[in-house]
């Protein structure tokens, strides 16, 4: 009989046969390691449920609870409709329910997150956050950035907050000379890291974004490097512990040209007076 920590746990839980118990007793008396393991298992009999029950967890948001309840009501309604209408084809009913379910969760606002699709496609030369940023950007359409641009003061304020947290100066480039109009600045999160996204729309309706992340462990500067991720062009560089990437649906050469203009400070900066 092999005696390991699993056997010892079963021994403590009274799950072993009398013969197995006798063998374990004998082994413990002869093996100090088994004795120590048994002591640890005894010491691990702790009030886990009570400890976790005492934890102050965030309350389930009421809006989310209401949406979940509505999803159940919708499903019940669909089921009752089906039972009343015997001539309704199953495929149609299923579609009805799926539409109801999607409608039930579609209005959750901050509860809806964007999928990364970064699993197999990350490359060794690109930071994970850049691949995730490209994945995020790949879902942008011209409509994503349609409408009025964010107020310049709000864009600069968000940028300033990010810069203060990073302890590094971060500026918003004015890319209008390159055909890109500033639309908005927003904060994103990758793992526990803040990412600043400065979004632009080209004169031909293409979305583009300059994304910045603070990389305190990477102080060495790096020149601009181009790569395609998730069908969008990326050009990344690093300076003063900040990693930048310019992402767009542009051609690789035009994408690189804009990135070089930003990284070399040829592009002017947007100021509060803009």
């Amino acid at each position, binding site marked *: 009989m092999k005696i390991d920590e699993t056997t010892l746990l079963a021994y403590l839980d009274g799950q072993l046969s009398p013969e197995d118990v006798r063998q374990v007793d004998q082994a413990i008396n002869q093996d100090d390691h088994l004795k120590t393991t048994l002591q640890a298992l005894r010491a*691990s009999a702790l009030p886990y449920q009570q400890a976790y029950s*005492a934890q102050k967890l965030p309350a389930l948001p009421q809006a*989310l609870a209401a949406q979940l309840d509505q999803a159940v009501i919708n499903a019940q309604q669909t*089921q009752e409709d089906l039972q009343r209408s015997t001539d309704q084809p199953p495929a149609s009913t299923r579609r009805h329910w799926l539409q109801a379910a999607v409608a039930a*969760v579609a209005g959750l606002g901050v*509860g809806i*997150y964007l999928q990364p699709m970064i699993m197999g496609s990350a490359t060794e030369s690109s930071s994970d*956050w850049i691949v995730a940023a490209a994945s995020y950007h790949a879902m942008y359409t011209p409509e994503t950035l349609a409408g009025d641009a964010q107020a310049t003061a709000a864009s600069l304020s968000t940028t300033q907050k990010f810069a203060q947290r990073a302890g590094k100066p971060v500026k918003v480039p004015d890319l209008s000379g390159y055909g890109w109009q500033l639309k908005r600045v927003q904060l*994103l999160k990758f793992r526990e890291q803040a990412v600043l996204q400065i979004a632009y729309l080209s004169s031909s309706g293409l979305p583009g974004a300059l994304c910045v992340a603070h990389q305190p462990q990477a102080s060495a500067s790096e020149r601009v490097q181009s790569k395609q991720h998730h069908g969008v062009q990326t050009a990344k560089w690093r300076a003063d512990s900040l990693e930048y990437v310019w992402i767009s649906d542009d051609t690789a050469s035009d994408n690189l040209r804009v990135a070089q203009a930003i990284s070399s400070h040829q592009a002017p900066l947007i100021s509060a007076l803009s």
Partner: protein
Amino acid sequence: MVDSFLRELPAHQMGLWKFALRLTRNQHDAEDLLQRSYVRAIEKRSQWQPATSMKSWVFAIMHSIWVNDLQHPRLRLVESLEQMDVPDWDIASDETTHNPEHRLHFKQIILAVESLPEAQRMVMLLVGIEGFSYQEAAEVLSIPIGTVMSRLARARVAIGSQFAHHQQNHSSAQYA
């Protein structure tokens, strides 16, 4: 007539919410995980066998969505930099935990579990905190029951090694 699944599902809402918080350790991800799990459970409810535990079936759906769809790192929008900070889920101060020493002990227990390797933490959450049987935990995690038992035993040894010196002062009977 409404099926029993739809009648019973709301009773698991809070349990799923807590499990989502503990899986993700993040309120925003937990909200996303809960809503996806709910929708998928309703979609697939015809696969649930009424003679089996609905709780373990819906927990299995949630665990599967977390592992397969959501666990990979991704970008998401935050409203402010304050949202960047990891929430501190403190121990409530009530009649059970009014004693600061007990509260500290509870915190140490949670820290010990949360510091385990993820596979062991998951088994501890299901068996030690949620009260699932080994068989039910095996079904939730889609692993053999023997693997559940060995992970649980390794987790308990790791935790017990940290708590061996506490045992004289803090028997679990104090909290019963």
